[in-house]
């Protein structure tokens, strides 16, 4: 973090990261020798490592996966090769030993992960300076943490905050105990599991967490009575600053919710459905109102706001209408808080194709349907000055940092939001890692597809899942959230360890994906 390596073109000397308390300066004694050598060796070693990382992460994988033996035999392998840090050789594992013995080259880079292998240690080595570069390369696609590539695909507000770029680092936190890790259940206050699951997904959302723990909304200064953002602030404090392990009573959230006059609130009260998705929308809008530009988040139009909710969840959709008569194109852009994906039609289609067994969909099927396939509509064309058939294409113009997806499991027949509602139980498989490039406006343009880097910058990692179990009326909401690499299941006040297979096997209703390139 300390030393910002310069770009390869720059003649400036590269530096080893400066000492950080509690961390050795080098990954091993041998790297230490290499990197405390003369400046030329330091420069060339670090520059060359960066080059190898570019080969590994930006080029076609076949490059790094193809090795050559001393005898000149060329092999492409599925398993890792080793890229010599001291010459241009790419070697298989057996050849690596020979190469080391012959040339005296001792440092190699794993062709699949970019990790550094020291042949003296006969072990992988995690050198702070080099590892920092690798993490950055994997994360942002760039060695500088200041900019993210393909900025036009992400919202402005994020660019702004990227410049401030302050990572969530414990050194700066005060008081928090090692015990306080944000993992607590929330008591069910009587049929409030639909709130609990959404609150848990907010609590384990790194952007929201950093905002609230970074004093983004100061409940001490806020004059709004029964402010839900203050209630959130208090809740974050209780989860991340106290050592308590018992359940949390979200009394302030609940009373703020009952007092709120939001439209969503009326819906929630007057309909029979207590829907986690509606509560998510309600909470997002409420928090926007408390932290944002004061404007109502309109649906159907473009709303650019800098508030934490917009920075976290909002993206933009482009709806392109092409007149079938004159070919004239109109574009409309609108902001979205989440993507709602219909299941019913798709499930029916799929059921016809594969009549035996339960139809099973993938999340990508649903996204394809919505953001790759086009549909037809009637539209009044200005050019033709008449009503014409038009083709509509939807694509995502601006990707959000946290992508929220609703799988429409509750369908309401013909307007009546009453008893006619039914639950769609179709199994929808969803991935731990989701590439959104195919659904973006840029990814659908001709030149967008190829770049590895562009692909990588659109990769999302699953962050939390809200599941609805049981019947529509008597069912229950539970959720799964990922903290680091570990998944936890939240069933009201009860928090348990969860396996990835539990998560992926759940009947997801809401999915939250976090963009990986956010460094």
């Amino acid at each position, binding site marked *: 973090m300390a030393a910002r390596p310069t770009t390869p073109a720059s003649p400036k000397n590269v530096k080893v990261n400066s000492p950080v308390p509690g961390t050795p300066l080098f990954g091993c004694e041998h790297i230490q020798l290499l990197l405390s050598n003369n400046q030329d060796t330091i420069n060339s070693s670090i520059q060359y490592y960066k080059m190898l990382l570019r080969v590994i992460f930006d080029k076609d994988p076949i490059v790094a996966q193809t090795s050559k033996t001393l005898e000149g035999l060329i092999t492409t392998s599925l398993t890792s090769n080793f890229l010599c840090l001291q010459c241009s050789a790419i070697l298989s594992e057996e050849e690596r030993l020979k190469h080391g013995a012959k040339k005296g080259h001792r440092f190699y880079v794993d062709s699949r992960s970019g990790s550094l292998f020291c042949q003296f240690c006969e072990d992988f080595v995690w050198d702070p300076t080099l590892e920092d570069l690798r993490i950055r390369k994997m994360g942002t696609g760039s060695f500088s943490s200041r900019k993210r590539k393909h900025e036009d695909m992400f919202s402005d507000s994020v660019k702004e905050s990227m410049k401030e770029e302050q990572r969530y680092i414990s050194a700066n936190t005060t008081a928090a105990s090692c015990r306080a890790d944000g993992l607590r259940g929330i008591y069910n206050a009587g049929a409030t599991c639909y709130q609990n699951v959404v609150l848990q997904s907010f609590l384990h959302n790194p952007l929201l967490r950093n905002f609230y723990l970074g004093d983004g909304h100061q409940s001490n200064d806020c004059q709004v009575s029964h402010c839900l953002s203050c209630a959130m602030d208090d809740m974050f*404090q209780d989860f*991340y600053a106290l050592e308590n392990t018992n359940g949390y009573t979200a009394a302030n959230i609940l009373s703020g919710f009952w007092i709120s006059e939001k439209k969503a609130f009326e819906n929630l009260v007057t309909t029979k459905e*207590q829907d986690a998705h509606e509560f998510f929308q309600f909470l997002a809008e409420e928090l926007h109102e408390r932290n944002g530009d004061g404007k109502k988040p309109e649906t159907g139009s473009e709303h650019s706001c800098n508030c934490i909710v917009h920075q976290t969840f909002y993206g933009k959709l482009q709806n392109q209408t092409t007149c079938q008569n004159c070919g004239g194109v109109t574009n409309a852009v609108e902001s979205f808080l989440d993507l709602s994906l219909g299941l019913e039609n798709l499930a029916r289609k799929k059921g016809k194709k594969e009549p035996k067994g339960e139809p099973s969909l993938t999340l990508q099927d649903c996204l394809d349907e919505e953001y790759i396939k086009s549909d037809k509509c009637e539209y009044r064309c200005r050019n033709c000055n008449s009503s014409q058939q038009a083709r509509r294409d939807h694509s995502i113009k601006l990707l959000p940092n946290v992508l929220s997806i609703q799988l429409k499991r509750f369908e309401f027949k013909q307007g009546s939001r009453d008893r006619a509602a039914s639950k769609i139980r179709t199994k929808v498989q969803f991935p731990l890692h989701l590439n959104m490039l195919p659904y973006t406006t840029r990814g659908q343009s001709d030149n967008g597809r190829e770049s590895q880097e562009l692909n990588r910058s659109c990769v999302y990692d699953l962050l939390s899942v809200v599941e609805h179990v049981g019947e529509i009326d008597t069912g229950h909401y539970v959720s799964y959230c990922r903290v680091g690499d570990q998944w936890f299941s939240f069933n009201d006040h009860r928090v348990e360890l969860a396996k990835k297979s539990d998560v992926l096997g759940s009947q997801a209703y809401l999915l939250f994906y976090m963009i990986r390139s956010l460094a």
Partner: protein
Amino acid sequence: MASPVNTGRAGVINAPDDAGSMDQLAHAVLDDLLYNIVHDLLIKVHRDEKIARAATAAIRVEKLASDASDSSTPDARPDVKVETDAAIYDEGKVTLKGNPLVTTHDIVCPRCHLPRLLYPTDGKGARKPDPSIIYCKKRPYIDKPGYDIYGQTWVAQGPGRGKKKKDMEKKIDPNTPADSPTPASEGGNVGGGAASRPPNMLSFPSATCSKCKRCILVTRLNNHMGSCIGNSGRNASRAAAQKISNGNSNGNGDGTPPSSQKGTPLPGSRAGSPKKRDGDEMDEDDATDNDAHKKKKLKPMAASVNVNKKLVVKPKVGAGIKKEKKNDDDDGPTVEVAPKKKVTKVPSPAKKLKLGVKPLMSSPLAKSNGKAAVGGGNTGDDAASESSGTLSSPPAA
């Protein structure tokens, strides 16, 4: 180490000897992929573990260095040379000696510098901790059926799925009103009294309604607030908000049972039988939670606070307790003298967790790369991918 043709690198998925060449290739590919999966898992654990051990070596030698120097400024990096089996400290720089996976056998917390407990104390993979050692408070999570990650369980078994909830409420409801004001009665009769309850068995707390200031068992809070605050739609809620800001704590006074649509938990969630709990029960709720009852309850509430707070040891927590009390428990008396406005706000400046700066972004790939590598100290979710999260897995040395 050239692999035979009928399998891949892992050598686990073998094609039969008489398999055709496509068949052999398919087996080899599958076997290679299996190898990669295992390789990726191992390298992740290896990374977490090795970085944590290297940090441990560094922290230990730094400690020696600061002990060796008689500096009065503890933060400065002393200008001395110290050496352990695992690391060298020289003029503020720490370098490793040998492989930390070999030289260092335990892990200390980068934050509190106490040793990390490496195995859960209960459930799957449990081992007995050394009673003579004070461990860091971050412990491996417990994986045990019927218990949560902290090894806690609840007096009335937590609502399971679907219909179970109904049964649970039946158990709780008769106990909530007036009778035996012992902590056990707070959560239902299952535990059979505080004495017989194991220390890790918690009861359901109560919370104060922001409007009427009554102490309500948490499982009935929504029901109560729905009728107390949100009883008849928009205007009423506005009026309610008004009343609350004015500090009207005389109860809602209107006494009318809420219409079943508004006051009760609605179906979408998992209340088994919302209808059943409407009017009459709400009245009962209102009636029993009167002031006299509240006072009677105070003591037991305090007792249950202690049960819940048993893990709280740190000095900072003083403020925390105050606050938690307000959230989880009846603190009627405090609220009555509280400022009229913003009663729901809990001012707790003392215990604010701060991030010093104003970070918005998280670490890159927090999921697969603990920050230990770059930052040294960790908190929050990143900490989980730090070594302690994977302690039970064997290092891949």
